[in-house]
């Protein structure tokens, strides 16, 4: 039986690796943000390189999984759903990478009073992505647990929105140039968006879960 299941197990391993990369990317994003706020710019750039590498690997894996599923006509009923999940989750990595790239290009000056709220928003968005990874893993292995994780994603997305709003209010209450305020708002919203993407994947995932239930 293990021999016959070889292809199946191989794709399972690829899916797990893909989700590992998403999880790694989320943590890398948080560490990169911390590096940036603490002024460790060289380390920040290393994290960005790592993030780019993750994005490439995730893209390659996604394409490879897609090809396998179609060529071997595996999971015909759920194939489209699985591919949509992978593509949307991949967008979450893209979004995190874009955010870091934008930091690297613009090098916005973040006043130290914002550090705490900035990191809180980052952590809430990263937590949403981590819960999303759990939810997707459960979709494949433990259907009953999916909703539990989806609920947590919604919770952290809401949290990211709340803290993000506080952050933007604080930015606009500060005595700095309007152009600076506008630039910081752009970055704050970018971080909040990461949890929005995670939520969008979960919206689809909850429907796919209903479809998968017998």
């Amino acid at each position, binding site marked *: 039986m293990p021999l016959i299941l070889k292809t*199946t197990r191989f794709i399972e391993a690829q899916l797990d690796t893909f989700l590992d990369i998403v999880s790694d990317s989320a943590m890398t994003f948080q560490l990169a943000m911390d590096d940036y706020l603490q002024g460790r710019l060289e380390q920040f750039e290393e994290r960005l390189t790592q993030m780019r590498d993750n994005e490439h690997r995730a893209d390659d894996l996604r394409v490879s999984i897609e090809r396998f599923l179609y060529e071997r006509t595996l999971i015909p009923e759920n194939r489209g759903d699985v591919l949509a999940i992978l593509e949307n989750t991949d967008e979450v990595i893209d979004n995190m990478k874009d955010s870091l790239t934008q930091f690297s290009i613009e090098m916005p000056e973040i006043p130290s009073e914002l550090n705490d709220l900035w990191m809180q928003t980052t952590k809430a968005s990263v937590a949403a992505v981590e819960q999303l990874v759990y939810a997707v893993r459960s979709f494949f292995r433990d259907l009953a647990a999916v909703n539990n994780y989806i609920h947590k994603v919604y919770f952290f997305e809401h949290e990211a929105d709340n803290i993000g709003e506080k952050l933007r209010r604080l930015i606009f209450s500060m005595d700095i140039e309007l152009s600076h305020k506008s630039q910081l708002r752009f970055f704050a919203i970018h971080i909040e968006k990461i949890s929005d993407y995670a939520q969008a994947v979960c919206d689809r995932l909850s429907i796919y879960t209903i479809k998968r239930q*017998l």
Partner: protein
Amino acid sequence: MIFVYLLSGLFLGWSLGANDTGNIFGAAVETRMLKFKSAALIAAIFIALGAILEGSGPSGTLGKLGSVDALGGAFTVALAAAATITVIVRTGIPVSTSQTIVGAIIGWNYFSHRLTDFRSLLTIASSWVSAFLLAGLIAAGLYYIFRDRVNRSKVHLLEQDFYTRLGLIVIGAFGAYSLGANNIANVVGVFVPVTPFKDLNIGGLFVLSGVMQLYILGTLSIIIGIYTYSHKVMRTVGKDLFQLSPLTALIALLSEAIVLFMFSSRGLYNLLHSLHLPTIPLVPVSSSQVIVGAIVGIGLAKGGKNIRYNILGKISIAWVAAPVIAFFFSFVALFIIQNVFEQTVNMEMSYVFDRVTITEIERQGYDTKHFSMVNGRSFENEITLFNELKEQSSFNHEELLDIIRVTEVHTMIVDTEILQKKGMTGRFSAEQWKALDELDGRKYRHKWQLAEDLANFPCWQISVDKTNPIEKNRNHDINANLDTLYRSFYLPKKPK
């Protein structure tokens, strides 16, 4: 001429391939778990294996078809059944092939003025309901069990997909094997005694007998049916009636296998009886009705909203219509074949009331005082005899049939070589063969005379204890073997 006759058998094979394979693989193909080409290939391989390895055994339907005593009649009956199946399959509706054949045979009975066993009609009608309901119940039960298990199991989606696919292939292959084993006899069974093919020596390695060549030809006709025409039935079963998912397709197929097994396994019957558990009656059921019942059962268990009741209605009408259409096709075709093409469609039968038969009727415990009007007379028509006896006596339907069976003239000569040539060696036990060898060369005028002589050997004795299911089973086997002997040793008197 035999080749022309054979064509109708092959036509029947073709229609069987188109209809019955759709029942087995429709759900798997329409849920895209199996490509049509793969399903057709698996079906072709396993139908061929079933037909060639186990196909020499008779099917219940062949027994009935065997009662059609002239090759021209068998040709026409098969043609009528095949035409009916084709007409219905064209609309994509799965139909019971056995019931259609029975409908065509009843057409022959009416045309040939033979009595029809109304019990088989009752069986057909009751199986329309019972097989359908039972399959639905089992499928719904399995659905709840699977739902509970699958929703709680921690098997990866891809592995679940793998096991579902494997299940669909294994159960489908098993279904195809049974289809081949049970139905090849319907397709070419009647041509076995007159096979036009000579034994073929393949490179000095083995000899391909004429009968085997006939079976291979029949199998090919079924396979062509699969490749050319089974797609429509597959679509109805797997998609049109109710949109199945791969797992529900597996449940439907599993329910079909369970119901067909429950109603046909004598082993299960004996096991239940030996454990003092209630037994399941051995009734022939149709795979078409079972698979449709299973799908409807799953649909209802899922809330019943997505079942297309208009398609279900069409299927139900087609089930009732199929035997009726086959009856009319058969009757009209027999008339044309006999009167336009001047072919023999039935043998002339005769029933005599002489000293020998009257003594036997008395021995069986019937009062012969009412037979003064028929005594010494001979009848050519079973229905006329039945009506005359009914008027003159107070015997019931069953008793009258018993009496008619005693008076039927059925000349036979015991010839074990015929059985060997027909490849029936495996059907009889060593003791039964020994008994037949001892009677080799003897002539008989009535079926019961041969049965009486054979009953001197314990292995051919019918048990009087009809309440014991094990004995009932044994009696059933002996009667089936006796029927084979009556057909094989028959010396036709004169064609009509």
